[in-house]
């Protein structure tokens, strides 16, 4: 921390200010978001809000290009053994952690060991079946797997694989300290209020899809929590805030007036979908699941709520993710067809006097509760009475799992508008391979198909395996895609801010950002 401060006051800053030609002191960018990070420890949270902060503090071994393909970053090259079980990475020389210590193979080993340690990473299984990490020399490291794992390389470009320096041994790590090799270093985190980051003058861009090869141009990045959309908009207008998610209903007016730029992230990997408690009635019956899918009109709902800022998503993996193909998925999809829904319900013995009773879980924020209200009204028209319960995403994850694990619960089974953002179709394995993230739909046939998506590495062959799974999930109405992207993907940016980019899978990048005037 001390070294960073000294450097800010040192020659780098003078050079930066002279170069900008304004003689203005430190450039400070304020980015407002609806909520705060849960933790600065990449193993202790899963929220997008947390990941977006990790992206600034930490770097990853690989990096995605704008198309979402992983390429070299802190690891300049790698070799995979014949049997596909050993990966050897060569690390770039000269990378420094924020505390001044060099970043090397020991830090990689520290990070992976930690992810599998006593208090393992919340997303441990996404690292794959890793059995060992070996430091060959300071700049090369070998990772061993127990079986082939096709999603390993993309994972190493994702924020969940953020490299944590081995000097993060204090018990304040993740809350008030966080040492990485990313473009910004942590100055202060006032929980619930703001995270203050200072530029890392030693940063070298090795693989991010931006123009700036070195340290960020801005000196300070403040990530502030401003929950109310209207307040964020007002703060954008007064200049208190430079970048923020606007209220959706105001976007057309903003676009018309042109006083703020609207940037919509693409290839976010975000998928919003229906899933069902299949362990008990009514959704143990495929017809009930299909009735929900036929009985709701996602296109109409997103047009009303998101003013055309998002897309109908037919697939269980979102646009930009390997295996996504709208045409392929649509053949197995459920177009809005209320009559068909009523027919299916009638077959099951439901009717106008005997509606299907259920509960829909929805997670807070992003206007999803409003979307749910539209779906609720549409479902009521076909004879499904769905109560809505709005909850935090963590609660929803736990409740969905609990529902699936309670087959004898006398109350009707629930369904939910689940959301996942993932960089690879391996998410389908994690969700639906038994025991499954939510203990939901599972059987041996699907398990075998999912195994193959992991062990098949060659892209053409893997695509076939992935699409077979997609077809199965959709035909059985297990995982029914609704729309993508779904949360925190729209940014309103003040006109004086230039160079703000959003990498694939919703990784905002600030190294190119300059504030003019």
């Amino acid at each position: 921390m001390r070294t960073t401060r000294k450097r800010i006051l040192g020659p780098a800053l003078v050079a930066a200010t002279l170069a900008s030609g304004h003689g203005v002191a430190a450039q400070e960018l304020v980015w407002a978001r609806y909520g705060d990070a849960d933790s600065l420890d990449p193993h202790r949270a899963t929220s997008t809000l947390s990941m977006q902060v990790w992206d600034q503090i930490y770097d990853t071994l690989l990096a995605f290009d704008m198309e979402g393909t992983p390429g070299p970053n802190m690891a300049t090259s790698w070799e995979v053994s014949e049997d596909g079980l050993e990966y050897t990475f060569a690390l770039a020389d000269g990378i420094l952690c924020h505390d001044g210590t060099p970043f090397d193979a020991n830090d990689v080993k520290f990070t992976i060991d930690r992810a599998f340690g006593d208090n393992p990473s919340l997303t441990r299984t996404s690292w794959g079946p890793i059995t060992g990490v070996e430091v060959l020399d300071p700049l090369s490291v070998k990772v061993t797997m127990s079986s082939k794992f096709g999603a390993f390389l993309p994972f190493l470009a994702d924020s969940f694989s953020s490299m944590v320096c081995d000097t993060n041994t204090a018990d304040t790590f993740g809350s008030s300290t966080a040492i990485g090799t990313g473009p910004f270093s942590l100055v202060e985190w006032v929980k619930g209020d703001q995270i203050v980051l200072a530029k890392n003058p030693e940063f070298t861009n090795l693989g991010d899809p931006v123009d700036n090869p070195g340290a960020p141009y801005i000196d300070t990045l403040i990530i502030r929590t401003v929950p109310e959309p209207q307040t964020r908009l007002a703060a954008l207008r007064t200049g208190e805030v430079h970048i923020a998610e606007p209220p959706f209903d105001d976007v057309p007016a903003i676009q018309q007036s042109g006083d703020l730029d609207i940037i919509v992230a693409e290839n976010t990997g975000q998928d919003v979908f229906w899933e069902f408690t299949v362990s008990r009635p009514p959704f143990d019956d495929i017809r009930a699941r299909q009735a929900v899918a036929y009985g709701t009109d996602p296109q109409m709902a997103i047009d009303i709520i998101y003013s055309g800022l998002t897309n109908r998503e037919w697939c269980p993996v979102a646009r930009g993710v390997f295996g996504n193909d709208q045409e392929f998925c649509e053949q197995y999809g459920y177009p809005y067809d209320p009559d068909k829904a009523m027919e299916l319900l009638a077959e099951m013995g439901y009717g106008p006097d005997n509606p299907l009773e259920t509960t829909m879980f929805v997670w807070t924020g992003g206007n999803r509760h409003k979307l749910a209200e539209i779906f609720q009204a549409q479902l009521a028209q076909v004879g499904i009475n769905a109560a809505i319960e709005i909850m935090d995403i963590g609660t929803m994850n736990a409740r969905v799992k609990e529902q699936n694990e309670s087959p004898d619960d006398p109350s009707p089974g629930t369904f939910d508008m689940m959301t996942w953002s993932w960089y690879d179709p391996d998410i389908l394995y994690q969700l639906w391979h038994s025991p499954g993230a939510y203990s939901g739909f599972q059987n041996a046939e699907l398990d075998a198909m999912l195994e193959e998506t992991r062990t098949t590495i060659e892209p053409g062959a893997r695509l076939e395996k992935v699409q077979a799974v997609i077809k199965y999930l959709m035909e059985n109405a297990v995982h029914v895609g609704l729309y993508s992207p779904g949360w925190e993907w729209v940014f309103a940016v003040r006109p004086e801010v230039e160079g703000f980019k959003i990498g694939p899978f919703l990784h905002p990048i600030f190294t190119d950002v300059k504030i003019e005037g």
Partner: protein
Amino acid sequence: MARFIAQRLLAALVTIWIATIAVTLLIHLVPGDPVRIMYGSFQTTPEQLEEIRQRLGLDQPIWKQYLYYLGRLAQGDLGRSIVGDQPVADILLTRFPATLALTLTSLVIAVVVGMSLGFLAAYKRGTWVDAGAMVLAVIGVSMPHFWLGLLLLFLFALQLGWLPVAGGDWKSLILPALTLGLANAAVLARMTRSAMIDIFDQDFVRTARAKGLPRAVVLYRHALRSGLVPIVSMLGLQFAYLMGGAIVVENVFAWNGVGRLAIQAVFARDYPLIQGFILFFATVVALASVIVDVAYAFLDPRIRYS
């Protein structure tokens, strides 16, 4: 006096002790398996849950859990939050100054506005001033403070742009403090009025007036001072109400205090944080009431011996 303070502190300790029992019970009143509800998230295996159960001592009989809880509490350990896995005590302590600033500022607003209005109404008893003040007070009591907050926000921040909306400085304290303060000023105005009417009717005020002292002096020196006594005794309760009101108001203005934290914790079913909040809240309110009681005893010497 020392004995009086000791007595009050003891009473506060009893309150806090009961709160510790209540929060220990809380987790067991939740239907279902608390560990699964709290930690049963993405990718947690049954073995991990079992390990967490043991680590938290939730596999022990309840009285053991309670002793365990007290033991950790003695070391200032309120457990770790589920969201973000951080020490609950740290989270509460970093958030509390914001709540305290809001509560105390609104207490000052409530006392100044409420007592002036009540005093004026009593002084001008039976006139239109009295009637007007009391109509205002009834409206104030009836107005939901989150609505008052939205109206103030709409008017002063969004329409007129007089106040910043997203900053963390003192200016952003103005609207939440006004919202909370004005809502409680109405209650204080009604209390002050009836207390002052009692005083004005008492003999010593009449005697003072008969002696020919200027009216203002009579009012301020005698009446106000005696009138203060019952009102100060209500301040502890007022403080508690304001702390409670702050929970809602903080959410209207995104004020970064413990109240907003508490609501987020309920949404996230972050039970360690909810438990910590309740205990913390009870402690603060209990200590505040000790302070008020002691202040009251200084103001009114009779109370010390009763």
